[in-house]
């Protein structure tokens, strides 16, 4: 968001001084804390989302976050709580509506689409009903880092820690069930239950990412780093680590840029993430052509 300060800070290329100056504002410290939590959680959950081909479910849950936040504002509740509640409820609705246990199936995407439509409609209703100053629906849709309180950071960290803990517990069977549901079921893995559990985790991660990037740009942290990582490695553990690192890089670069430039945060984060994706694609295309790993130089901006 625009810093309408007459003495707008200028980027000095002295990163130490820049960060010192930036972090003298508590709201920036909170923004970086929140961004870090979100990037880690969204990177890990996003890796599984891309693997399971549930990006459409992720998109829908992010749209569900919008009416959640609008309703929370309307009722005077905390906005992150609204995000979280709405996304978890949306995840349960999608899980209940899909007919079969298989993820990414045709029935699931149809059911998911209906949830998305009704969620957007509700969000519009709540924004209309709230006649006062609603920080602009724009902030809900495209993200902001202004006004992230310490309480909100704590909520993000607790929810994020919970998501990561559950994922650490179910990660391997979830990987098995995602790749090979029939064989996993034959080995006694509760495939259907894991599908529902993952939708809930996806809901929580989406709600978190929505705080930084806004509802519409959740993919910037949820899907793009994971998709980039999967371009670069086919191994599960390095892929997960890479998704987290790429998400962190996009988030921090985005925050840095949004602080010094009058560009909205959602745009900055998304653009950095997308540039990384394009570079990864380019690198893979070059590697595929020559059979070697040349360093890609001067990628598209």
């Amino acid at each position: 968001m625009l810093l309408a300060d007459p003495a707008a800070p200028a980027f000095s290329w002295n990163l130490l001084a820049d960060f010192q100056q930036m972090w003298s504002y508590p709201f920036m410290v909170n923004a970086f804390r929140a961004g870090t939590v979100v990037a880690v959680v969204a990177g890990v959950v996003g890796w599984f989302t891309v693997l399971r081909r549930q990006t459409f479910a992720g998109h829908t849950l992010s749209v569900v976050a919008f009416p959640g936040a609008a309703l929370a504002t309307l009722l005077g509740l905390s906005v992150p709580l609204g995000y979280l509640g709405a996304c978890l409820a949306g995840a349960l609705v999608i899980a209940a509506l899909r007919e079969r246990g298989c993820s990414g199936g045709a029935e699931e995407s149809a059911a998911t689409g209906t949830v998305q439509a009704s969620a957007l409609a509700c969000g519009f209703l709540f924004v209309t009903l709230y006649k006062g100053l609603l920080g602009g629906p724009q902030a809900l849709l495209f993200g902001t880092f202004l006004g992230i309180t310490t309480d909100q950071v704590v909520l993000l960290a607790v929810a994020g820690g919970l998501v990561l803990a559950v994922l650490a517990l179910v990660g391997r069977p979830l990987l098995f069930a995602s790749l090979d549901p029939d064989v996993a079921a034959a080995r006694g893995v509760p495939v259907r239950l894991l599908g529902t559990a993952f939708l809930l985790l996806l809901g929580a991660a989406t709600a978190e990412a929505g705080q930084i990037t806004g509802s519409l740009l959740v993919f910037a942290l949820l899907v793009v780093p994971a998709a980039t990582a999967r371009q670069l490695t086919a191994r599960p553990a390095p892929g997960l680590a890479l998704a987290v690192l790429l998400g962190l890089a996009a988030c921090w670069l985005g925050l840095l840029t949004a602080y010094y430039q009058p560009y909205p945060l959602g745009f900055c984060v998304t653009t950095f993430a997308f540039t990384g994706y394009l570079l990864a694609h380019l690198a893979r295309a070059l590697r595929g052509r020559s059979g070697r790993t040349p360093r890609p130089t001067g990628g598209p901006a």
Partner: protein
Amino acid sequence: MTAAPTGPAAPASPAAPAAPPAPNAEPVLELRGAAVRVGGRTLWSGVDLTVGAGEFTAVLGPNGVGKSTLVKTLLGAVPATAGELHLPPRDRIGYLPQRRSFDAGVRIRGTDIVRLGLDGHRWGVPVPGLHRARRRTERARVREVVEQVGATAYAHRPIGQCSGGEQQRLLLAQALVTRPRLLLLDEPLDSLDLPNQSAMAALLGRICRDEGVSVVMVAHDVNPILHHLDRVVYLAEGRAVSGPPAEVITSTTLSRLYGAPVEVLTTAAGRLVVVGVPEDRGSRGPCC
């Protein structure tokens, strides 16, 4: 059916020797009068089958007769409504479902897929430094089984970029990695070209012989595996006959099973062709 006179789970059967039987004396799998109802309709009944260690069995029959359901019954996924079943414990059964191929976008290495067969059902993540010995053993086992199916050259490529035959070998390695006593395969030769079909059939025959793994395989066409088979179960008309292929795939046996005249012809190349199957008239027989 073998002549093994063991009663169902009866250790004190008079014919059974008092000493613990040799591993290949005890059948790995035994069905007696098994029946399955699906959606209120009896799919098949009276299925008898005994499979010893290291035996290669094919499940044959026309489409929709319940061949895959038989495999699912053996897995415990579809309960039998009648009869007696004696099966190895579930963790000693390897399973390769009807496929199921990974498309080009799947960016997971073949070895990871094989490894999941070993530890994919385990909760929690591996903590670095913990269970180091077990993890080393497991890695060695994955390497060994990948080599056994001849997939070493491409096991480190993303599985989506492997050919259908290569994927099938890696999936077979996944099913074998736990050292199962019984391997259940559902049409594993489907969608493979002819050279790959015979290579896969030879590989399965070798696994039976050398590793002592019993294989039960649903097949659409018996010919690629005919020379490796010890036994067939032929399902038709809700009934079944089982026995050595030379006794089951004959005009008299199949005519009795179908209750209508059915002919088994042998082509000049030694292929078996079943003609005149009721309900399947005009189309190619179930066995070719």
